[in-house]
């Protein structure tokens, strides 16, 4: 069984390499000076090659250094990876149960909202306050996700539609609450909440933004791995995801599996939301979720819906985010390029046949769990 696993890893890795190549082309094209040198390529080729090489290598060097060049960049990579891993785990878990969970964004917002509210509304002792705020975050996400599972189980509604709609509901709910007394910081007119009490904040590693939430994320990874690989519930989720008819015939409740999977997926995204508000942002704003919820879908895809894969993919994306910021600062390469890189990676992942063709990786035995996600 190890061989298909290795092949998947190779394909994921190859997708990253291919994306970097595409990115290089974009860097060259988008830099006016470099592009100009290509205008006289046929009269004097070295100029164009030289300029292109410099532009690409400068950009990628700063990307690399910004992500991994020392403790500070590494800590920044880990900070960026933390919520991606948690929300990505949620998406992966749902995938394994045959559900295409587009709703990590909404679940994350619901989690951040609850965690933030507990974080600034109460005064409680040190450990207790953080744990309570964290629990609130899990709860908020679980409700937001569980609702989807329940509706699907009861009415057969498609989870893709439900989650997309609930993303909007969560965002606008947050925006509205930020203009009411419930969340808005007293004395402010803009949509921002009070700062989370010190007692509810994740402790930081001195001198960095890295916080304890990263360890919590790793614990979540272990928990999800155990759930999927070692628990009877996980066995049911996987069976329902792979063949709901056979699962039903074997006495499993398909509806129950959907509900549990979405509850857990929501809780994990809610955890990511709690990490954002309790670990890095402190006040709630309507930008609290950034694009983490959507990126986490990509992370789950790249990680092939496995817990370990999700960690690796989360770290890769964290590094791209952290490095991208540095790249923009130092070489004026627009930050959107990292987004393009991430999107290109997904494209190649989603089209493994293309990657295999480029690298001549042999394909035998087909089908990943991801193709199943769309089955209603």
């Amino acid at each position: 069984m190890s061989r298909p696993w290795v092949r998947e890893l190779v394909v994921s890795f190859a997708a990253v390499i291919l994306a970097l190549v595409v990115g290089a082309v974009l860097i060259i094209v988008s830099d006016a000076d470099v592009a100009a040198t290509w205008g006289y390529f046929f009269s004097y080729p070295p100029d164009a090659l030289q300029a292109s090489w410099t532009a690409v290598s400068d950009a990628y060097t700063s990307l690399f250094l910004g992500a991994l060049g020392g403790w500070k960049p590494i800590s920044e990579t880990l900070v960026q990876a933390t919520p991606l891993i948690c929300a990505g785990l949620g998406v992966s878990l749902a995938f394994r149960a045959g559900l295409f969970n587009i709703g990590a964004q909404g679940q994350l917002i619901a989690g951040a909202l609850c965690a933030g509210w507990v974080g600034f509304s109460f005064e409680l002792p040190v450990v207790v306050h953080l744990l309570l705020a964290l629990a609130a975050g899990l709860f908020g996400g679980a409700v937001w996700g569980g609702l989807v599972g329940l509706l699907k189980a009861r009415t057969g509604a498609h989870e893709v539609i439900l989650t997309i709609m609930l993303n909007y509901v969560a965002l606008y709910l947050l925006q509205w609450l930020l203009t009411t007394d419930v969340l808005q910081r007293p004395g402010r007119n803009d949509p921002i909440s009070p700062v989370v009490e010190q007692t509810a904040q994740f402790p930081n590693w001195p001198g960095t933004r890295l916080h304890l939430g990263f360890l919590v994320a790793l614990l979540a990874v272990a928990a999800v791995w155990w759930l999927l690989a070692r628990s009877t519930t996980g066995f049911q989720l996987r069976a329902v995801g792979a063949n709901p008819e056979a699962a039903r015939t074997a006495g499993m409740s398909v509806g129950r599996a959907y509900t549990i999977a979405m509850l857990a997926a929501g809780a994990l995204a809610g955890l990511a939301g709690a990490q954002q508000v309790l670990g890095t942002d402190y006040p709630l704003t309507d930008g609290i979720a950034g694009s983490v919820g959507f990126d986490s879908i990509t992370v789950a895809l790249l990680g092939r819906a496995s817990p370990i894969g999700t960690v690796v993919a989360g770290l890769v994306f964290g590094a791209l985010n952290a490095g991208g910021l540095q790249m923009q600062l130092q070489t004026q390469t627009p930050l959107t390029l990292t987004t393009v890189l991430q999107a290109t990676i997904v494209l190649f992942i989603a089209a493994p046949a293309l990657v295999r063709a480029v690298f001549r990786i042999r394909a035998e035995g087909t089908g990943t769990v991801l193709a199943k996600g769309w089955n209603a």
Partner: protein
Amino acid sequence: MKLELRGLTKRFGSLVANDHIDLTVESGEIHCLLGENGAGKSTLMNVLYGLLQPDEGSVLLDGEPLTCTSPGAAIAAGIGMVHQHFMLVPVFTVAENVMLGRERTRGLGVLDQRAARTLVRELSERYGLAVDPDARVEDIPVGVQQRVEILKALANEAKVLILDEPTAVLTPQEIDELIEVMRALKRNGTSVIFITHKLKEVRAIADRITVIRRGKVVATVAPDTSESELAELMVGRPVQLQVDKRAGTNLGGAKLAVEGLDVVDPQGFLAVDGVSFEVRGGEILGIAGVQGNGQTELVEALMGLTAAASGSVKLGGRELVGAGPREHLEAGIGYIPEDRSHDGYVGTFSVAENLILDLHSRAPFSRNGTLSPAAIRANAAQRVEEFDVRTQSVETEVSALSGGNQQKVVLARELSRPLELLIAAQPTRGLDVGSIEFVHNRIVRERDQGTAVLIVSTELEEIVALSDRIAVMYRGRIVGIVGPDTSWDQLGCMMAGIPPEEAAQQAEENPTVLGALEDAHE
């Protein structure tokens, strides 16, 4: 077209699925491939059809070397294949399906439907394949769907046609029709490679028979070879083709009591119409009937998979109508579904996981919600050994097993715990003769332990061989329940809806050749 395989070898990791296979199929020959489950027949055909790449050896078509890297290349070279699982688009019409992949258009990209329809009509006339080009595939019976598959291959001008276990899902009448089609193909010079486990069919139609065992060709013989000889060649030991079934000695009281059961199918038709019967402990009740007469719905209702519209199902006095599949399993019912890949196993799960699919939440396979990998593996090792499941390891995905071995996984799971009632639908579909012998003996043993057994099969031979009593279903009703020594002809008449006494009379007046043969066989 003459087809030659020379030294063809295909490995899956350390497993040699095809080991230097030499095979020659003459032009216009019907060549049968026989072999036990997992012998490598399907693999060999998939290599020929370009779905798998051989590791060694070559394929010659009329003496010219041929390499197919994709089914497209094989089709272009004149090789067609009908898979056991059909690859048709259910919502398309017959003509559209035949056209699929080779769409002809008239200007502006408009599909030339008329040409497709004409082609279908022409081909179906030439080969006696009666189909309506405008019927939607999802609306036509399996046997006709198969004809569509054959038409598809013929429309691509196949000169060599591969049929992988085409008869496993057909009714006896449909099999007769298929045999006629194969003869028509032969007259047109098409070569046919025909895979089946049914020795009678082989002897009826084959020009030559090649037997494969564990990836190697063991013999190529003429069709007048006896069934027992063929069976022995396949399995490598003498096979007892008749079940050793003495009347049950352990006959108990009524275990399963079904009263006035009605089941409505999704289209709103009454699929099961007021069915009542009893099965006693230590007894095998066989349900015979042509496919599609309510057997599927009856079984699903008995398992709680489909809700009964009215009536009662009692197991050991306990009402089961209204309970879900889980309660049914917990009440001690073992269930072998008719469509194994749909309901019986999870293809991407390992053999070990599939062997506990409906037992995973019980000790020793899990405790307090935690699976016990050691117990699961030990169980798997034992079952694989006992049921002779040919698999590379217990961690192998079930989808990588051969069809018959997948069936054995389902059987091994359901027959490995104490049961009150065993419901087996088409229990030996796709199994080789050796495995059929084994499974039939296991079912009889289950009966002798006092379990009530309900067998549903469209194969009269299996029903007659196993049952203590036979119920015949027709259009959702039970026509009658008769003893095991009822003649084939009478059963045949009952399957057409004629009540038992009248059927007996009719059967006596017009005996059929096949029926007489079979009765003498008993």
